[in-house]
C-alpha cells in the first residue's frame, strides 16, 4: 500500500495553520513555512497542485477557504493522497452536517483530530467511510444550527464485524416505516467547440447517486438502457433488442456494494445498498451526446478602442423543458473601460475581476434563441500591439430532467425477505462541466 502523507496541514487563506497532524517524522515541523513562503506567496498558487521544495513534495488542494496540504518526503502516491483529501473532506462534512470551511474547522478541533487519528495510520489511509466511523466516533460535530439533525445513538457492539464482515457497509436490523429509494442521475457536459461550430472535444461524465431508506437487508437490481445490459437481456430472452437508443458507457466504476461477479456474468447491477446516501456508480460517455445549447458568437474588433460582441445562444432540448441558472461569460481584453449591452432576456454586465462580460439568464426555455449584443470600449494602452489571446466563451447551466447522454433508468427492483413495497423516485439533471466555445 503506498504512502500517502507524512504530514497533513489545514491552512486558512492567510496561511495560518489551523490543524497540523504529523504521521511520520521524515518531514520537519517547519515545512509549512516553506509552503507559505514558496507556494502561497507565489503567483503559481493554484496552477499546479504538486510542488517540490527542499526535498519534500507538497500536495495541496483548496476547499472553500481552507488549504489542505499534504507533505511527503518519499515518492508517495499522489492520486491516493488527493483521493484521501477528498474523502476526508466528505467525511468531515457528514460529521459537521454541512459546510466545510475555516469556521467549521475552528469549531470542531477535537473531532477533527480524533478523526485524523482514525483515518490514517503512519501515512497509510484507513477506513474513511462515514457510516462506519460514525458508529465508533460518536462525538457529535458542532453543526450549523440550521442543518442539525437528530442522530440516533447506536451501540458500538461489533466493531470488528462491521469492518471485516461480508456486508461491511450495512447494519442489520434497520427498520423504516416507509421504504423509499431516491435515484439521481447527474451528468456534466464538457465541450470544446471551435469558432465555426465544429466540436473539437466533447464528453459527459455522469454519476448515479442513491439515497435509500429501506428496512432489513434488501437486494436491489438496477436496469439502464446501456448497451451491455440490453444485449445480455436480448440474448437471454432470445429476441432482438429494441430499436430504441442504447448507450455505450465507458469507464464505469461502482460502489463497493455492487456485486461484481454478478455484473461480469449476468451484466446486471445488483447490490445490497448502504443505508443513506451514496454514489452507486460513475461513468463516462464520449459518443452520441446531445448538446443542450448551441452558441454562435461573433466578436469584432473595430480599431484599437472599440469592440462589438454578439452572442446568440440556442437551446436544443425539448420545448417543455427549461434550463436554470444559465451564465454566459464572454472574455474581453484587460483594458476594457465600458460596455453597453442589449439583451433579449436576462441581465448582462462587465466583470472586471474576471475580465468577462457576464450574461445571466435565470430560466431558459427549450427550443428558443436568445441573443446578447454589446459594444465594448477599450482604453488605449502603452504597448501598441499587446495581442489579445481571445480565450473561449464559457457557459454554465443546469437542465433538469434531461440527460445529455440519453441514459434512462429502465427498472429498479427491490427484493427483501419480508417483501414490503417500496417507492422509487428517479431524477435526471444535466450540468455544464467546462462548456467552452472558441471565438
Amino acid at each position: 500500500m503506498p504512502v500517502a502523507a507524512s504530514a497533513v496541514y489545514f491552512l486558512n487563506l492567510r496561511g495560518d495553520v489551523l490543524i497540523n497532524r504529523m504521521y511520520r517524522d521524515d518531514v520537519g515541523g517547519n515545512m509549512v513555512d516553506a509552503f507559505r513562503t514558496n507556494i502561497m506567496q507565489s503567483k503559481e498558487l493554484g496552477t499546479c497542485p504538486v510542488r517540490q521544495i527542499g526535498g519534500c513534495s507538497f500536495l495541496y488542494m483548496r476547499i472553500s477557504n481552507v488549504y489542505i496540504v499534504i507533505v511527503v518526503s518519499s515518492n508517495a502516491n499522489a492520486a491516493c493522497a488527493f483521493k484521501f483529501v477528498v474523502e476526508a473532506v466528505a467525511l468531515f462534512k457528514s460529521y459537521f452536517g454541512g459546510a466545510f470551511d475555516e469556521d467549521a474547522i475552528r469549531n470542531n478541533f477535537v473531532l477533527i483530530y480524533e478523526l485524523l487519528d482514525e483515518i490514517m495510520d503512519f501515512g497509510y489511509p484507513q477506513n474513511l467511510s462515514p457510516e462506519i466511523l460514525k458508529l465508533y466516533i460518536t462525538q457529535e460535530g458542532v453543526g450549523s444550527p440550521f442543518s442539525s439533525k437528530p442522530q440516533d445513538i447506536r451501540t458500538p457492539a461489533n466493531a470488528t464485524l462491521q469492518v471485516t464482515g461480508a456486508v461491511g457497509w450495512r447494519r442489520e436490523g434497520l427498520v423504516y416505516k416507509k421504504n423509499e429509494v431516491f435515484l439521481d442521475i447527474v451528468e456534466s457536459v464538457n465541450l470544446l467547440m471551435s469558432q465555426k461550430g465544429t466540436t473539437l472535444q466533447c464528453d459527459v461524465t455522469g454519476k448515479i447517486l442513491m439515497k435509500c431508506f429501506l428496512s432489513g437487508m434488501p437486494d436491489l437490481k438496477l436496469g439502464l438502457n446501456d448497451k451491455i445490459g440490453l444485449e445480455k437481456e436480448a440474448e437471454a430472452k432470445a429476441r432482438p433488442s429494441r430499436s430504441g437508443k442504447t448507450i455505450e458507457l465507458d469507464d464505469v466504476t461502482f460502489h463497493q456494494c455492487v456485486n461484481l461477479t454478478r455484473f461480469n456474468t449476468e451484466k446486471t447491477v445488483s447490490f445490497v445498498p448502504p443505508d443513506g446516501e451514496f454514489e452507486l456508480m460513475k461513468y463516462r460517455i464520449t459518443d452520441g451526446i446531445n448538446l443542450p445549447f448551441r452558441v454562435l458568437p461573433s466578436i469584432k474588433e473595430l480599431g484599437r478602442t472599440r469592440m462589438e460582441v454578439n452572442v446568440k445562444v440556442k437551446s436544443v432540448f425539448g420545448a417543455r423543458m427549461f434550463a436554470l441558472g444559465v451564465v454566459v461569460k464572454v472574455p474581453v481584453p484587460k483594458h476594457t473601460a465600458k460596455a453597453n449591452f442589449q439583451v433579449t432576456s436576462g441581465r448582462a454586465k462587465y466583470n472586471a475581476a474576471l475580465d468577462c462580460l457576464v450574461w445571466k439568464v435565470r430560466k431558459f426555455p427549450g427550443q428558443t434563441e436568445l441573443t446578447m449584443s454589446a459594444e465594448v470600449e477599450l482604453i488605449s494602452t502603452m504597448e501598441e500591439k499587446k495581442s489579445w489571446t481571445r480565450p473561449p466563451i464559457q457557459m454554465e447551466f443546469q437542465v433538469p430532467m434531461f440527460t445529455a447522454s440519453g441514459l434512462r433508468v429502465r427498472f429498479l427492483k427491490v427484493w427483501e425477505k419480508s417483501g414490503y413495497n417500496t417507492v422509487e423516485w428517479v431524477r435526471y439533471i444535466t450540468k455544464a462541466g467546462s462548456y467552452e466555445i472558441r471565438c
Partner: protein
Amino acid sequence: MALSGMRGLSVFISDVRNCQNKEQERVRVDKELANIRTRFKNQRGLTPYEKKKYVWKMLYIYMLGYDVDFGHMETVALISAPKYAEKQVGYIVTSCLLNENHDFLRLVINTVRNDIIGRNETFQCLALTMVGNVGGREFSESLAPDVQKLLVSNTCRPLVRKKAALCLLRLYRKNPDVVNVEGWSQQMVQLLDERDLGVLTAVMSLLVALVASNPDGYWSCLPKCVHILERLTRNQDILQEYTYYGIPSPWLQVKTMRVLQYFPVVEDPNVRRGLFDVLQRILVGTDVVKNVNKNNASHAVLFEAIALVMHLDADKEMMSQCVALLGKFVAVREPNIRYLGLENMTRMLLVADVNESIKKHQAHIISSLKDPDISIRRRSLDLLYGMCDISNAKDIVEELLQYLTTADFGIREELALKAAILAEKFAPNLAWYVEVILQLIEKAGDFVSDDIWYRVVQFVTNNDDLQAFAAAKARDYLDKPAVHETMVKVAGYLLGEYSHLLARRPGCSPKEVFHIIHDKFPTVTTPTKALLLSAYVKILMHSQPPDQELQAQVDEVFKRCESFIDAEVQQRAVEYIILSHKGPSMVDIMAEMPKFPERQSALIKRAEDAEGEPTEMSATKLRQRQNSMALVVADPGSANGGLPPPSEQLALPEPPPPAPEPAAPAAPAAPQSAYANGTNKAPAPASTNGDLLGDLLAPLALEAPPISTPSPLTQSADPGEPLALALYDQQNQIKPIGSIEDWFRALSLKDSGVLYEDPYIQIGIKSEWREAQAKMVLFLGNKHTVPLVNIRVLILPAPHLKMQFSRVPDTIPPRAQVQVPVEVTCLSASRETAVLDFSYTISTLPVNVKLRLPTLMNKIFQAAPVSASDFVAHWRAIAGPPTKLQEVVRGVRPMPVSDMGDLFNSLHIGVAPGLDPNVNNIVAATTFFSQAGATLCLVRVETDPSDRTQMRLTVASQDPNVTYEVKEFIKEQVIDIPFARTPAPTPSPAVMGLTGPAAVLAGLI
C-alpha cells in the same frame, strides 16, 4: 502629500489593506482599475481633482506590483497643470511609471524645460527630480544646458543647485557628451569654492563621475579638493547641521578623498604637504568609540584616507602609522571593525614596505583565524597568505596546519591549497617542504588536490639528496593506522622509486616495504592500484640480489590483477609480470624516472584562477613578482644539508649525467628563469598533452627502432615527395617520418608543434610572438637509445630578421631532450623565412637537414578591429602606388568567400564582416609590427562569384615595403598549392634580389 483631501484614495488604500488575502486584494484592485478605465474613457466629466485622485490610485496599484499600462496621457497632462498638487502627482507618477525609452516622454520635454527655466523654485525642484530619476538620452540632449545653467547660477537657492548637480550627474552617466571637458573644468573649479556644504557634496558626487572618466581634464580641481579637506578636518566654518556625531560632513570627506584617488600622484609640494597634514590628522584623530554610528562615520573616513595614503605612496612612517591603526582594529572584539581592519590590511599589502610593520600584528591575525565568524576567518586567511614571506613562513604554515584540523569544511580546501603554495614558495629548505606537505596530506587528505602531491614528487625526483629522506618519511606515514588515499599514492610512488636508498635501515627491506604498501592495496581506488603496481615492480627491480620470495609474492599480486576489471590495471599487471621475468634487462626499462623539466607550479596557477576578488588577485600577483624564484630564493647558506647550489637546483633542468658539458650554458639562463617565474608556459613539449607526471606514470613503451637496421631506403630526392626546400644530404639514408612540408604548413598557422622527425630525432618548436619579437624554443629530442653526436645547429637568418641563439651541446644523450632558445626580432617586412641547418651523426651515419623555420609574416600580424568609418578614413588617406597596390590574382584555389575569410582570420588578418556591402568582397585589417613600429595594413579582396579562380586584391598601408610584402604574402597563401614542387609563380626573387637563406637553398637545388 495631500492625502487628507482625497477621501476616495484613502478609502481605496484602507480597503486594500483590509483584504484578508491576495485574492481579495486582486479582486479589489481589478475593480478599481476598471473604474479608473471607465472614468478616463469619458474624459469630459473629469475634474482636475478627480484626475489627480485617480492617478494617485494608479501609482498605488503600480506600487503593489500590478500592471498598469494605461492612463499615461492623463499623467503627463497633469505635469502642465498650474497647481502644485497636480504637478507633483504628474511628476512623481511619470518618473515611476515611465522609463527613459518611452515615447510619452517626448511630450513632456517642453513642459519640463519651461519649469526648469521658470522662476518658481518648487517647480524647478520637481522637474529636476523627475529628470534625474528618469534620465535618458533625449532628456540629456535637450535639457543638459539648462540644468548646467541652474547649477552655476548665483541667483538660485542652494536647494535648487543641489538638485541640479545631482540631476546633471545622472544625465552625465547616461550621456557623457553633455559635459565638455574644456568648458566645464573651469566651472567645476569655481563650483568647488562654494561655501554651502550641501551644494558642495552634490558637486563632489558629480566631480567623482567626471574625474573617473577623465582625470587629466580636471587637474585644476585638485588643490581645491585638498583645500576643502583641510577646511573639513580643521572643522572651520562648518554649520552644525552638517556635522554628524561631531564629524564634519563625513560624506563630503569620503567623496573628496575618492576624487583625489583618481588623480595620479600629486606633484606640487605645497599641495602635497597640505594633503599629508590632513591625512595625518585623520589618522591620528580616529579611534574606536562606543557609539556605533559615530564609529561607522569615522571609520568610513579613515578607510578612505588609508586608501588615499596607499594611492599617494606616502612615506614609510605614515604607512606604518596606518598599519598600527589597523592593528588596533584587528585587536578589537567587535567583528565588523575587525573585519574591516583585516580587509584593509590585506589591501595594504599592495604597497611595498609595510610587510614588516604588518608582521608585528601576526599574533592577532592568527588569533582571528579562530574567530567564530567565518568571514573574519577568511579575511585573516587571505591576509596571512598575503603577508607570508621567508622569515615567517615557517610559523604561518605551521599555524595553518594546526588550524586545518579544526577548520570548517567550507574553507578547508582553500586552506590546504594556500598552505601548500606558501610552503612551496617560502620553504627554507626542501626537506621542510616535503615534511609540511606530507603533514598536510595526513591532516586534510580529502582537500589535497592531485596537483599538490604531483609537486612533491617533482621536487623529490629533481633533488637527489632529498630522495632518501622523503622515502623514509613516506614509510613512517604509512605505519600510521588510518592513511588517506592521497598519502598512499605519494608513499607508493616515493617508495617505489627510492625505497632502495633505505634498504640498510631497519624495517625497510624491499620485502617489508612491499608488505607495508600492499596492506593498503585492497582499500584504494583503481587509479591508485595501478600506481601501486608500478611501485611493486620497481621495488622488485631494486631488490638486489633478487629475492625469490618477494618475486613470488609480487607475481601473485600481478597474476591476480591480470583479470582486473579496469583495463589500465589489467594491462599493467600483464606487462609487469612479463617484464619482471626479463632479468637484468628490466633494469633499463624500470630505471629511475628522469628529472622533470622545471615549470610553473600548477598550484600557483590554480590559485590565480581561483582568485575572484580583484584586490586579492593583484595582491597575489604582486607577491609573485616579489618572490619570483620560488624555492630558489632559499638561503643557500642555511643548514639545508647538501643541496646543490641554488642556481642549479630547480630553475634549470639539470644536465643528464652522461653529458660531457652542461646542456644549458649561461646564455639561455635568462629565458629559462623566465619560465620558472611563471611568465611563460612550461617549455617541455610533453607538457602540452596533459600532466607530465601522469604521462610518466604510464608504462613505458619502446618506440625507436634498433640501430642495427637503418632503413635501407634509397634516395631522399624522391620525385613524388613534395619537398621544395628541405633537402637531405646525398649520403643520408634516413628519411623523415611524415612530410616536412605538412609540418611546416601546420606550423605556419600554429605556434608550436613538430618541425621535423625521423627515427632518431624529433625537433619540436614552440614560439611566442609579441609584436615584432619572438621567443622561440627548439626542442631537440633524442628518441634513440644511443647518443647522437656531432650535433650542429645553424640558423641562417633572413635579412629582415635578427636571430640570436645559444650554443648547442654537440651530443644528445639517449632519450634526452635539449632545448635551444632562440630570440627573434623582426626588422622589416619580408615573406622570407629563416632556415635551420641541422646535422648530427648517428653511429657514423651523418645526417643533415635544412628546414624552414616558421617565421612567417602572419606571426607578426595582429588582427586589428576597425570600424567602418576608421577603415574608410584610412583607406582614403592612402592614395595609390606604392603604398596602395592592386593586382588581379589568377589561379586562386577556388573556395567560398566565407572560407577565404576564415583563412584570413587564421593568418591574423582580421576580417571585418559586413563592412563591405558586397557579399563577394572581403575587407580586412591587420597590424604589422617591426622594430620601426606598428603599421596598419588594410586589405580588400574582390572575388568574382562566376569565376572563383581569380580575384582582385588591394593592399594599403603607410609603408610601401609592407604593402608589397603583405600583398605577395596573401597571394602566396591563396594561390593554388602555394608549396608546390614547381616553384610557385611568385615574382619575389626576381624583384627582391637573391638574398638570404632562400637564395642559399635555391643554390642547393
